[in-house]
């Protein structure tokens, strides 16, 4: 231990800072669900018999179906991500970057719009099939739900897997290739090295699918998240709804813990150095799979984009729709950006707690699982319970939707930052502790560049998810303020396909622009750029 980190005074200050950080984190992330737990305790104390009414063979079956569906989406996404990411990994740098952003283009769209686009495209295909006298399958059921959900979340799975492959050290790859073929090295070294990213992707897909209810009704199937929503809708009782949500929370806990355990086990600190840039020929069968995966990824963007462009009308109509949504565009951009920025320190604090050991880490993982399973309307109701008191200044301001976005998406970002945190060589951080001459300088020169890939991924995730968020923000938007998502859903109900398409394209364009801006900022501060001649 050195002079700066070893003194009792320093240790107590450090404990104080850690306590302060944990308190801020608890206020932002845990206060809303804690308020709900309090309401739940009151409701349960008044009527303990309601648990028997709520838990039944029917709800158990719903939960089992939902778990199966979420697992199928996670599996589909992972199976798609491995060949697609391996193909992108070998693509030339510039092509890889362009393709990466192309595949991410529609990530900000809510799953409902993906469903709408696929149903539109499916109807056109069915009409063609019927005209040709062929069988036209019905656009409903579990298969379609799993497909569309997987397509909506595919960019996340492919992006994370690619990130894992890109972080493979060149030395490790070259050493593996000395003793075996590149094909074997890919499976024996590259994929295990990327396993945390793959697992994180599968875990995120599982959790996002499990808690989403917006698509199930579209394809005429029922999932447990919808049961939670209908309970809230029918009884208007947040406590009772939380009781219904508990089995889903319990189901997400093993998923979150398993993902975390894998991250801890596999993501040992690695040596810093140049990343591998492999050039070799894949086996024919794998190359075919890669092409099929890339084709599916192209469809993942092409089908919704094509359906939206075809229904968006002429450029003048698009311009009119965009001009009419100026305020909403400004609001959505503003709160999504603020959420992405404010979410980063929170995600980092949460990741630091999760990365630790002992009771704090376990409590962190429990809290994380609870937050991941919390349905959006309940998060909104919890926020109202926390902040809406006479004389409190926060309620009715921009901070409310911001808090809603942070409460909903920071846990996901924390998982990504945790992955990055585990990858940093602790010797570098210790060196920074010894030699730094100021926290800002140390932050900008050492920690931020080391953390930047994880922070970038986390910020992009918060940003894209925030642009399409509806369930929680709807409950806490200040009067007179509206977001693109609210306007889009209003037009969706009205049946204004042209405006819906225009607003969806605008949302995608906004997400892409903001994502590119983020990437440029992080590139600007990255060590690679500074070390370049």
């Amino acid at each position: 231990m050195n002079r700066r980190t070893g003194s009792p005074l320093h240790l107590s200050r450090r404990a104080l800072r850690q306590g302060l950080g944990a308190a801020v984190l608890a206020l932002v992330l845990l206060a809303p669900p804690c308020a709900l737990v309090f309401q739940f305790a009151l409701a349960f104390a008044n009527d303990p018999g309601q648990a028997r009414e709520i838990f039944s063979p029917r709800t158990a079956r719903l939960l089992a179906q939902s778990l199966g569906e979420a697992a199928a989406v996670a599996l589909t996404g992972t199976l798609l991500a491995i060949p697609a990411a391996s193909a992108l990994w070998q693509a030339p740098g510039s092509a890889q970057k362009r393709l990466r952003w192309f595949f991410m283009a529609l990530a900000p769209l809510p799953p409902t719009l993906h469903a709408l686009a696929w149903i539109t495209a499916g109807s056109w295909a069915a009409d063609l099939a019927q005209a040709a006298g062929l069988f036209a399958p019905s656009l409903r059921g579990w298969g379609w739900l799993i497909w569309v959900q997987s397509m909506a979340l595919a960019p996340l799975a492919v992006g994370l897997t690619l990130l894992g492959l890109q972080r493979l050290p060149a030395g490790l790859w070259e050493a593996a290739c000395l003793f075996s073929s590149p094909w074997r090295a890919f499976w024996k070294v590259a994929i295990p090295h990327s396993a945390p990213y793959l697992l994180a992707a599968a875990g995120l897909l599982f959790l996002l699918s499990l808690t989403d209810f917006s698509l199930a009704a579209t394809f005429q199937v029922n999932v447990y998240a919808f049961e939670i929503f209908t309970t809230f809708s029918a009884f208007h009782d947040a406590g009772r709804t939380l009781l219904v949500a508990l089995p889903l929370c319990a189901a997400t806990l093993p998923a979150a813990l398993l993902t975390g355990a894998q991250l801890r086990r596999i993501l040992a600190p690695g040596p810093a150095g140049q990343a591998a840039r492999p050039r070799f020929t894949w086996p024919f069968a794998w190359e075919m799979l890669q092409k099929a995966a890339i084709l599916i990824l192209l469809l993942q963007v092409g089908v919704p984009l094509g359906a939206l462009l075809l229904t968006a009308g002429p450029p003048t109509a698009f311009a009119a729709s965009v001009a009419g949504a100026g305020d909403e565009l400004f609001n959505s951009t503003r709160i999504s950006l603020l959420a992405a920025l404010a979410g980063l320190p929170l995600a980092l604090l949460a990741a630091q707690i999760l990365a630790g050991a002992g009771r704090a880490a376990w409590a962190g993982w429990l809290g994380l699982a609870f937050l991941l399973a919390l349905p959006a309307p309940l998060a909104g109701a919890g926020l109202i319970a926390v902040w809406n008191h006479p004389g409190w200044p926060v309620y009715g301001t921009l901070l409310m939707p911001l808090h809603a976005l942070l409460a909903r998406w920071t846990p996901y970002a924390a998982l990504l930052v945790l992955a990055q945190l585990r990858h940093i060589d602790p010797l570098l951080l210790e060196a920074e502790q010894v030699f730094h001459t100021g926290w800002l300088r140390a932050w900008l020169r050492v920690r931020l560049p080391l953390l930047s890939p994880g922070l970038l991924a986390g910020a992009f995730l918060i940003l894209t998810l925030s642009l399409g968020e509806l369930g929680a923000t709807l409950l806490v938007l200040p009067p007179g303020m509206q977001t693109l998502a609210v306007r889009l859903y209003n037009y969706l109900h009205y049946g204004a396909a042209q405006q819906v398409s225009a607003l969806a394209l605008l949302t995608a364009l906004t997400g892409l622009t903001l994502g590119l801006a983020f990437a440029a900022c992080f590139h600007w501060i990255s060590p690679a750029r500074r070390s370049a001649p």
Partner: protein
Amino acid sequence: MHTCRSFIFLALALLVCACAPSSPNRVVIYTSVDQVFAEPVLKDFERQTGIQILPVYDVEAAKTTGLVNRLIAEADNPQADVFWSSEFAQMLLLKEKGVLEASKPANAAAIPAAMRDPQGLWYGFAGRARVLLVNTQRVAQGQYPTTYAGLLDSRFPADKIGIANPLFGTTSNEAAALYAKLGQDSARDFYQRLRQRGVQVLDGNSVVRDQVASGQIWYGLTDTDDACGALDKGAPVRLVFLEQGAGQPGALVIPNTVGRVKGGPNPQTAARLIDYLLSAAVEEKLAGAGFTHIPILSRAAPGGCLGGQSIRPLDLELDIIYNWLQPAQNDLKTIFLQ
């Protein structure tokens, strides 16, 4: 833990940028009416009175329950002055939860007693009705059900009939009305048989409308605003009001409702807004926009795409229908959420 310090700076910056400007001459309205219909009406009020309107709109995706839950959660520290609902059940729920307070609009006497609360907590205006939308390219003239029981008739293929999820919105109002009219056992039996037949349960009335208009299904229960929207866009559809024959109970008419939120921050401007909403001019404006077609204040004949038709409304008090909502939802949850 340098993150702590950076976080504190960030939090302070956010607090500064989040400060909201306030105006004394304003009114906050929460509305579950589609923004495309509500916004022009509210803008007109703003232009006429100079009172700033701060609206919060609900969306179909939240099944019009988002704002009601928000109003209930905000009951101890209300933010809204007025709630304008596109139907009546949510307003009656707010009454039951003690979220509303009485008001005396200038035009109250013009509203039929069945369409207003006896204590003045809410008032109805500008009605819509439940209707069977039929695709005229797929279905020959007269070959459609004219009663709810007809939906169970094997002559009409079940997979070509669509309803919105009866747990939400106006479809849940319709279910409660059927429970009130038929009795619990008969109504439960009707929905069980409907489900067993394989009738399609779709994600909202607008989806029913779109699928009938495109011919994916042939018959669909929806609201007149959705149905007229399809007709106005030239879709090959016909509107059929159910239960209109002699001795039959009539079609459910769903009024818009407006009520003052208890303890709202701007009571004076709220009263002016309620007066404005409960005016024949607003009813006409909503009818002109294609949202409502059954005037309640003027008691005139249905307009818009229903022009010339006579509709016999269901002879049931809204309170009675509302009281059946919870028992109906308990049954329907078991029937439809398997």
